[in-house]
């Protein structure tokens, strides 16, 4: 586990910055809820009249006057985008940075198989994502408790689980992409995360593009669906797991044979 420890140390600063930012914004949002609760009925009517814009964010099907409805839209976007960016950036640079920073000669001249390098780096990515989600989940629950609201355990946990799966899926895809890159990778990672986010917005607005929900992991993170159904869409998750495994398999196949420049 030498490389896992090494990667966790290398990614420590980035991990704490992203975790602190996402956790802080989530908490701020939750602490704003009591003040906004009273105004939500009017805002609800406003959202209802906003047509496609409200549909894009699932705001037409959620009651903003409840913590769950508020959390699904406001906090969901913060956790969704923040988590997706962190997971994508973390994974997309994991293999490519060795060539970009020219440390690959140092690493690969040691008696460590490429398969072990890939595996340990992948474990490091998943550990960072898991740790970030646990910290953020704990902060959210504590913040809800602090404002005196009853904690909607099932809905909150399902939403956090969905976003965790989203991050794992994006990380798997970006990890696969990372094996093919040997220069700057941050733009690619952010591009994948943003594209996935906007695909979901398009799917929400246009019925003909509804199939895109199966392509983007944001499809199964839709707060309105999770709250209404009390579960995460299994079919969408299955597609996500497949894409994630496909990315990881691509990483093993490519990086194990790659000529390191």
């Amino acid at each position, binding site marked *: 586990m030498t*490389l896992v420890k090494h990667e966790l140390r290398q990614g420590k600063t980035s991990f704490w910055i992203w975790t602190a930012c996402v956790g802080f914004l989530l908490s701020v949002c939750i602490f704003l809820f009591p003040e906004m609760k009273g105004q939500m009925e009017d805002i609800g009517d406003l959202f209802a009249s906003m047509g496609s814009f409200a549909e894009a964010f699932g705001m037409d099907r959620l009651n903003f006057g409840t913590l769950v409805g508020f959390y699904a839209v406001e906090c969901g976007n913060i956790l969704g985008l923040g988590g997706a960016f962190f997971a994508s950036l973390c994974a997309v640079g994991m293999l490519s940075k060795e060539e970009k920073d020219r440390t690959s000669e140092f690493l690969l001249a040691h*008696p460590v*198989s490429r398969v072990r390098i890939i595996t340990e780096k992948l474990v490091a990515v998943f550990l960072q994502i898991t740790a970030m989600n646990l910290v953020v989940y704990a902060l959210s629950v504590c913040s809800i408790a602090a404002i005196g609201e009853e904690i909607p355990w099932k809905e909150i946990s399902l939403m956090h689980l969905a976003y965790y799966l989203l991050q794992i899926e994006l990380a798997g895809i970006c990890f696969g992409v990372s094996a093919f890159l040997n220069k700057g990778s941050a733009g690619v990672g952010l591009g994948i995360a943003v594209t996935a986010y906007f695909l979901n917005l398009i799917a929400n607005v246009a019925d003909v593009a509804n199939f895109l929900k199966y392509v983007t992991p944001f499809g199964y993170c839709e707060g309105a669906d999770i709250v209404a159904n009390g579960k995460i869409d299994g079919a969408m998750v299955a597609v996500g797991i497949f894409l994630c495994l496909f990315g990881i398999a691509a990483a093993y196949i490519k990086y194990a044979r790659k000529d390191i420049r």
Partner: protein
Amino acid sequence: MQAIKINQLTKFYGKSRGISRLDLSVEKGEFFGFIGPNGAGKSTTIRTLLGLISPTSGSAEIFGKDIVREKQSVLRHIGYLPSEAIFYPGMRVKDILKLSADLRKKDCSREAKELCERLQLDISRRADDLSFGNRKKVAIVCALQSDPDLLILDEPTGGLDPLMQREFFAILKERNQKGTTVFFSSHVLSEVQRNCTRAAIIRDGKIIACDSVEVLAQTSAKRVTIHGKAEIEGLDGIRDIKYAEESFSFLYSGDMNRLLRTLSLGRIDDLTVTEPDLEEVFLHYYEKEDDRV
């Protein structure tokens, strides 16, 4: 036993040539020089041996083990010093040395301490803050601390001051005397001449000469240095004429009697005839076939 055995090794990067049908063998315990200018294929050969790149065709063995099929096992025997010492950002020297040792699953702390003392390396400093020469020292300790059977050194002395170079070669010689094979890539020919027993010269991805350093230095050409005046125009076999304040010299591979007759017509205060140094031999091998001395 052969430490390195390369058989018809070829590497193409797309259409461009890296190395082509390269044959080379290095005996166990040798101090072997690998000479060639930039782009000749030195680094490609080394990177292929280390498994960083896959050969297009051909094969190579290190201590009898195939570099592709038994890569991990091969790398256990090798300490590698890259031409550029680059490490992970933010790490202290001691952490880099520990990481390198951990990746080899060895406790190298005693050896690392001794090497750091000899090379005057402060292990508490961050590698990012070190000069090029000091980063090179870190790479040297990483390569040597596990006491490998084979040292592959790619342009190892770049950035080291002369005193450190002397200490570095002293360490290498000690290791070599204990049985470590040293494969030493360089274009500083004096280093190869001073330290290596055998050497190979690589040109355009092919080995064009491989022999003991003494034999490589013996060509039919001699360096003739003359103090005084003599008309040497018209003599065949003269090249690389160098003029100094009161003397001039040239490489001569023609008829020695004719040279002496020509010189006897001039006014010669002093005359020396010496073997050319390896630098001149190297240039000789890099001449085009019809221009060779």
